[in-house]
């Protein structure tokens, strides 16, 4: 029965809530920010190479910038994205994680 439900999901999923269009972008930004925070935490501990840290930070920041451009309805998410983009690449992991948590709250509210 559950399998039949999963197979029917493409039809059920067609009914989505207003504002949900931003969900993929918010989820992607939240994940990228969490990943960036993790990389910075490990970099602070000297456990990753400088090339790895810089590459991962740049990729996370590029993902956040790219997803932020696609936001349509969520002003709160746009504010968090702007705040994240204003942080330096080697920002304290706690600062980045705070914004990631805020994005997660927005995501769950949608």
């Amino acid at each position, binding site marked *: 029965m*559950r*399998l039949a*439900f*999963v*197979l029917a*999901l*493409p039809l*059920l*999923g*067609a009914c989505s809530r207003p504002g*949900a269009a931003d*969900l*993929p*972008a*918010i*989820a*992607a930004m*939240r*994940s*990228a920010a*969490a*990943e960036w925070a*993790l*990389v910075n935490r*490990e970099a602070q501990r*000297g*456990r*990753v*190479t*400088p*090339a*790895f840290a*810089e*590459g*991962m930070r740049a*990729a996370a920041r590029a*993902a956040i910038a*790219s997803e932020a451009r696609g936001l349509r309805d969520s002003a709160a998410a746009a504010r968090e994205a702007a705040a994240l983009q204003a942080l330096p690449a080697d920002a304290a992991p706690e600062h980045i994680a705070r914004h*990631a948590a805020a994005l*997660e709250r927005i*995501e769950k509210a949608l």
Partner: protein
Amino acid sequence: MNPLELMLGILTAVGGFVDVSELVFAAQAGSGFGYALIWVFAFSTIGIMVFGEMSGRVAAVAQQPVFNLMRHRLGLGLGLVTLIASILSNLITCAAEVGGAAIILHLLTGASTALMALAMTAVLVGSIWVLPFKWIERAYGLLGLVMIVFAVALVKIDPPWAAIAGGFVPQVPQGLSVRELTRFAYFGVAIVSAVMFPYEVYFYSSGGIEDEWGVKDLAVNRLTCIVGFGLGSLLAITILSSSAQLFGPLHIGPQLPGSAALEVELPMGRTGLLLALLGMLFAISGAAIETCLANAYGIAQFFGWKWGRRKKPWDAPRFTLTWIILFVLALAIVLTGIDVMRLVEFAVLFSILVLPLTYLPLLLLASDRRFMRTHRNGWIANGLGWGYFVVILVAALAAVPLFILTSGGQA
């Protein structure tokens, strides 16, 4: 049966099993759904064992490559449709592998991804040109065994082993919203596609011809598929399990090939990170070669050209030119600046659409008494083959709607 050859064949299959799509989807699946998608990996692995064994048997018994037989069996029209669909799917997959390898090199060296993509393509072309077939396959497959560091890392974090074992039981998690269930279904379909990529059977069966397999090699073929693919799949499952343990609680849905390396870094530090990156680099590079050669094999076999790396490059000029052009095209796609992760998603999406076209002719050929004589499919191979064919057909029909509804698994 030479035991050393058998062992090397199995190890090569293990090291060559994981590619960029499996890395990405295993890590994302673990982070998003814990251990609940392990059974899809296990289920798909039995599928690739079934069709891999079939393609190797067809090569060994009929002494002809799959695409050549396919054209005769299906006729020019349907054969051509299959060829074109496979070329597109393999080319996108090859570009994703080249792009993934370039990103890993970028993370290792700090040099630009575009420069690394150029360098990587030059190394891959050089490898195919210089090395005999057996060593092309083995060099990258055996170096890819460095990926075992992921299994060591999993042991070090000491996950809940009972929960991991429970993941092998087919299940749909309880209490998920419709949105989450849609994502779960999308990841299920993507894993089936990533494990059963069509290029794998083209490369594997053509490799059997390159290695001059005959009926005497059928046992090696069977063991390589069952043991090699089985152990390779376990590596992918360790990536999923570590991700469930480390990334899930941090709400990270790993979106980059480099993210998986953090699964090893967290328990093992900088040395673990470097080993993970190197293992991933070799595994992805090997997959890039396999996708490119699989494409060139298909084109050359379909049109009846001379083909194979057992010949000198200039003895099979059209085949040689084809694989070089395919690598250049893959590089050109990467150099457009397209997000490599989008390429990975497209590769998986295209592949699932091509899978039925790939596996139906193979199933028909392997059951055909005229070609296979006493080595045609028995009832177990036929039963499994048709069962998996129905599953991939359903997965292919659901793939595009699920991709659109979940924005490629994002939400």
